[in-house]
């Protein structure tokens, strides 16, 4: 595919997203429901991983090495 500009490329990517998820055939309000559910889920996943992953990593390292590496501690 040849794209004239980045904007066109983004539009194409969004089109692929519509086609693969199948929401291409849905009505606009259904599309917005799907998008908002999906993006809020992703946002929550990112937020929780930001909050909890460092703690888990610290605990895991503690368990494995038996000492506390100071660089990994976020808090």
């Amino acid at each position, binding site marked *: *595919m040849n794209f004239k500009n980045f904007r066109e490329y983004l539009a194409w990517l969004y089109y692929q997203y519509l*086609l*693969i*998820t199948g929401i291409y055939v849905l009505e606009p309000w259904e599309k917005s429901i799907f998008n908002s559910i999906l993006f809020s889920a992703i946002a929550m996943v990112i937020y929780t991983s930001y909050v909890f992953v460092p703690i888990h990593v610290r605990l895991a390292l503690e368990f*494995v090495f038996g000492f506390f590496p100071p660089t990994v501690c976020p808090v």
Partner: protein
Amino acid sequence: FLIRLKKGKSQKIIQSKTAFFPLNCPISLKVVFLCVFVYNNMFVCLFFYICFSVFQVHLASCYGGLYGRPFIESFEETPMLVAVLTYMGYGILTIFGYLRDFLRHWQIEKCSIAREKENQKDFVPLYQDFENFYTRNLYMRIRDNWNRPICSVPGAKMDLMERTSRDYNWTFEYTDRVVQDVINLGSYNYLGFAENTGPCADSACEVTMKYGVGVTSTRQEIGNLDRHEEMEKLVAKFLGVESAMAFGMGFATNSMNIPALAGKGCLILSDELNHASLVLGARLSGSTIRVFKHNNMQSLEKLLREAIVHGQPRTHRPWKKILIVVEGIYSMEGSIVRLPEVIALKKRYRAYLYLDEAHSIGALGPKGRGVVDYFGLDPCDVDVMMGTFTKSFGAAGGYIAGKRELIEYLRSHSHSAVYATSMSPPVVEQIITSMKCIMGEDGTTIGCKRVRQLADNTVYFRKRLREMGFITYGNNDSPVVPMMLYMPAKIGAFGREMLKRNIGVVVVGFPATPIIESRARFCISAAHTKDMLDRALSVISEVGDLLQLKYSRHRIQPSPARPFDDNVYEDIDD
């Protein structure tokens, strides 16, 4: 550290890596590391397994004594990722379908579909079932791709009436504009006889002037015209058999004649992808039906052997008749029946063969005589030859041909012979003229040229599609070219994008195909010029890039030739 472990291939490496953490670590810790290592390796193995096993082409080829030319059929496997995404798409659409049904049920939104009357609401529902769910919630959303009204001859090019919908395809409005010169890749117009000019149209016109259009009686009563008799003689001559008879509707030819041929105590062996008319006929006949895998002769032979060894269930009496029902070209897969092998099996096990040549008559073979001609076989080896006039001949109706006794029997026993109104004279005339043209009896070589043109077009079109990287199904010589789309949204998007670029295509989805194997089906015609095909191909390629349809991952390599000999089926065990 874990990443480095992941790259490890054997336990040796893990031994050397243990130097990185304290040597005095407890044994339980080592076990944990081993588990992690094995776990990671499992994923790597799984990944390679998927890569190598999924992307294989299934190529069936046979260059044995029974086949005059290479018999190459390919059914490339669905890539795993595409299959997963397709199921995901259907899952999402199903969830939204349930949401909409919920809204309709509580009358939050208006319900436009057929539903039970208010005073019958406690009855067993008449309209609601799963396929209805599918129609309501998936088909409705992309309904604009089907039932488009055409306002010209559906030849190589056609004119479409433009229509729009304001309520997402529940109703359509015509804009009074016409989309001109849409290239038609959907009609079964294999030899291009769907025309409004030329000798066929002229003679049909003359006959209409003489006989009128309607006959208003059945063949047994006052509806048997001289043109009907002439047509049946011509059909028999065309096919090289003793006798033939014609019916007004192709579908009814199958569904009404199989019950006349088979009944209780008979066994019908049917290909799994047989057309609905054959399935309906087999069911109506009341005989036992067993289904063999699509075009799989081993499967057919196994069923035949079982039928002969065990006989009827419970009583173990021998079956009265065994009827093998196959099609010439399978319209959804584009595959050609392995007729030489079917005939060999039929002769060996003394079964009867019913061959439905709906798509193959006119479209296959050097002389256009269908699949029998394609393989260079004797038409007398096929007990019942059925075909339609709807496709290659550009008319309507169907025929049954075979031995004289068979036809005489059917004339008095078949429902569609006794009860159906006889065929309209202009239609009969169209069949006669086009058939004479194919046979060269009109003194021209037009028919012969068209048959050759169709074969060339087919090979060219299929080759180009494969080169572009699309997954196409079926035999290399079959003018029905299914191209895989897989995802539900792509069915709608493909049809719309193609029409936007002035190409009319047929897209096919769930009830007609397995749920993930949605496809576009192109039907090549002799009327397509090379320019038209090139234009269509470039548009298909463009849309294929836009929708990411070029799923094929490899070149096609024919498998080593498998010599055919009589003992090829001997080594089958149950």
